[in-house]
């Protein structure tokens, strides 16, 4: 192998670097250049056509927009999008198509679309799809309040200033948060259980954690083929444990950080809980997990199981489903339709517990940095999100063909449920189905009564300074967390200690300091 050849390769490599550099640079660069100049209102549009947005917006040019959405393509998408586009064409002289990224490909494709500067106009975003990260890297177009007011009047009317504050990254808005009710599961999950089993065991109802444990013990005793609650390696294990432990620190104004918790209710005097106190609490939780595992509340192959909590419940393998309230109802509706004889019911074992709302960044829509049709994209998003006619069409299909509208504003499917509606736009104006669980409304009202917005909720951490440590800690966490949270560690204390010493050796202190500094800044900014 000659040195010359290596030299040639290096030269080739450098040349390409330069060539590609020019190309990509100009391609991804400057979202500002792409946005059209403010319109000179050559041709005022018919005021009838634009009820919402101000009528001095130029709609003479027809535009085709593209949306990027997560999840599999909805069954009725093609049929419904035609109807929506017919209306949009008339109202805004625009249409849009959707590219769905199925769960299996989402993690690969979604970030690639930003990295390559591929053309699309708006997309789904949320904290778990790296909203903060994406915003910092310049993936989204900044939205100004003036533009929102001008092009998205309905959204402007519905989204509160607090919420806009909540989605800010470095003081700038990149996301249009959804306004539907959403609660955080964690300590506040509800359960779906089987009424037929309760009857069989002579239990009348489940109201407390003890009742639930009794129910599970009964399952173990009378239905040995069944699993009391199915969990697998995703996340359900921790949820089950959390549900049996009242909120200790993550109460009002508390937030969880990297292996610590913060009380930011008084921005000038932030309290931090970490070290021994924090780990002692974790250890308690892991011991409970071990106890549950030993009793057999979940199966011995939970660590490798593919079927999740819901699948096992739906198929009669397990006796309990766990999830947060709205998802509980979804599960109820599904199981009640397939197996009414199971008499599913939603139970709440901690009706008095405070119910934290989900962060506003939990679900929403954003504009792509390189969109060439900023105004029209905003207008389309506005109308499909908050115009009741559009919203009903997108979420429930065609009236009197797919669903009937009841006097109280609820809807009933006519034959089978229509699978439409996008993530990130579950807004206030959503309707309620008539097939919901009988106690759903009541539970939801109770949840709203106990509901609160934790101050910490909208904090977005930027780990830029400690990336290496964050990655190292993540790799350690993934090694111990599943085992301990699902109670598979024989020596709970030893393994917890091991976990602690490993993350500390990996630089936990530095990570916490960086995190805390940002928390303090956040608390001051939004006091």
């Amino acid at each position, binding site marked *: 192998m000659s040195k010359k050849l290596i030299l040639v390769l290096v030269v080739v490599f450098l040349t390409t670097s330069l060539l590609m550099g020019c190309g990509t640079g100009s391609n991804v660069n400057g979202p500002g250049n792409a946005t059209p100049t403010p319109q000179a209102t050559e041709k005022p549009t018919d005021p009838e056509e634009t009820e919402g947005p101000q009528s001095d917006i130029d709609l003479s040019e027809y535009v085709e927009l593209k949306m990027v959405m997560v999840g*599999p393509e*909805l069954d009725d998408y093609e049929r419904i999008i035609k109807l929506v586009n017919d209306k949009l064409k008339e109202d805004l002289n625009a249409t849009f198509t959707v590219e769905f990224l199925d769960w299996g*490909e989402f993690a690969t494709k979604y970030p690639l679309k930003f990295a390559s500067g591929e053309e699309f106009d708006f997309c789904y975003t*949320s904290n778990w799809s790296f909203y903060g990260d994406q915003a910092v890297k310049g993936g989204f177009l900044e939205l100004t309040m003036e533009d929102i007011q001008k092009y998205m009047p309905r959204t402007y009317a519905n989204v509160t200033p607090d919420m806009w504050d909540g989605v800010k990254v470095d003081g700038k808005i990149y996301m249009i948060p959804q306004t539907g009710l959403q609660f955080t599961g*964690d300590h506040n999950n509800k359960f779906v259980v089987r009424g037929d089993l309760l009857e069989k065991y002579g239990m009348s109802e489940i109201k407390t954690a003890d009742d639930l444990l009794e129910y599970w013990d009964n399952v173990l005793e009378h239905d040995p083929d069944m699993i009391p609650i199915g969990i697998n390696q995703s996340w359900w294990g*921790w949820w089950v444990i959390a549900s049996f432990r009242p909120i200790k620190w993550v109460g009002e104004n508390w937030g969880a950080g990297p292996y610590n918790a913060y009380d930011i209710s008084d921005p000038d005097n932030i309290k931090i809980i970490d070290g021994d106190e924090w780990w002692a609490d974790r250890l308690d939780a892991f011991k409970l997990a071990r106890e549950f595992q030993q009793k057999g509340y979940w199966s011995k192959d939970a660590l490798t199981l*593919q079927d999740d909590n819901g699948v096992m419940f739906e198929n009669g393998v397990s006796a309990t489903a766990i999830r947060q309230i709205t998802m509980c109802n979804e599960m109820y509706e599904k199981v009640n339709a397939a197996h009414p004889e199971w008499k599913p019911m939603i139970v709440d074992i901690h009706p008095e517990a405070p119910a934290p709302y*989900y962060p506003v960044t939990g679900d929403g829509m954003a504009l792509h940095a390189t969109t060439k049709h900023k105004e029209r994209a905003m207008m389309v998003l506005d109308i499909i999100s908050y115009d009741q006619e559009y919203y009903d069409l997108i979420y429930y299909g065609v009236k009197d063909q797919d669903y009937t509208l009841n006097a109280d504003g609820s809807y009933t499917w006519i034959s089978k449920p229509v699978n439409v509606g996008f993530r990130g736009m579950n807004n206030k104006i959503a309707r309620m189905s008539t097939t919901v669980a009988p106690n759903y409304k009541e539970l939801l009202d109770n949840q709203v009564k106990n509901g609160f917005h934790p101050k910490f909720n909208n904090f977005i951490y930027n780990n830029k300074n400690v990336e290496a440590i964050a990655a190292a800690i993540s790799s350690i966490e993934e090694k111990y967390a599943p085992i301990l949270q699902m109670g598979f560690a024989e020596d709970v204390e030893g393994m917890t200690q091991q976990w602690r010493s490993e993350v500390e050796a990996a630089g936990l202190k530095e990570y916490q300091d960086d995190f805390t500094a940002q928390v303090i800044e956040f608390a001051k900014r939004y006091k």
Partner: protein
Amino acid sequence: MVKLSRDERIFHTLGYIFVGFMALICVFPMYLIIVGSFMSNEVIVKYGFSLWPSSFSLDAYKLLFSNPKHILDAYKVTIIVTACGTLLLLFLCTMTGYVLSRKDYKYRNKFSFYFFFTTIFGGGLVPFYILAVNYLKFKEHPLIAMIAPGIFGYFYVIIIRTYMSKIPSSIVESVKIDGANDFVIYARIIMPISKPILATVGLFSALGYWNDWFNCMLFVSNKQYYNLQYYLYTTLNSVAPMNAVMANANISYTSPPTHTFKLAMTIVTIGPILLLYPFLQKYFIKGIAVGAVKG
């Protein structure tokens, strides 16, 4: 039939046992999959796969063929891509392999290194995606997007090169004296005697194209051009590995596909490609290669 000597009889017995055993091991999971695809999903979630279908259900296949157009389109796309891709690959790789096998071509090792280097170093997904989408416009040409990235493989070139190097150089020399140029030698002399390796590489390439979902996932957004494996991939991976943050986000899957559906999908995607192999097997007969030259 020639009578076998004692050592040959022992050898053959060993062979039948060993190969037979391995074949059974390979078929067994396939059997489980077929049986499983005809069972009801509830039974699989409860009791796992079984040797004999304890319940019979066509649900998975009904669902799979509820919109037969999609599956048929996918077959069409997969077959077109596999056929075109394999032909192009065979042409490109045999030509390259032939040049690299010529010992009188001074820079053959340099070129080998040039190719080999790319099997170890790669720029990762982002630059490739940018190149493919922004410059090569793969998004607008779905068929090209699925064919082009796979028409060259150093692995193929190297097995072709190794095979061709063993061809006695006297054959090449004798034709050269007759005034044939290098391309004619490659096309008329070398290719015919390389049938076993052509069949091998052709089969590998076909299998590779048949099993590829990645390029389809990256570049194809028009449903009409989805290939079979992409359907299989999305079916199998619809429950993505998720992290804790995602977990809290109240994601509702529109019910993940059932086990039986995954199994049925696996069966459907294997189908025709298996027919290709017995067809190619006629090129794996002893002595065919050398015989062709002498005859």
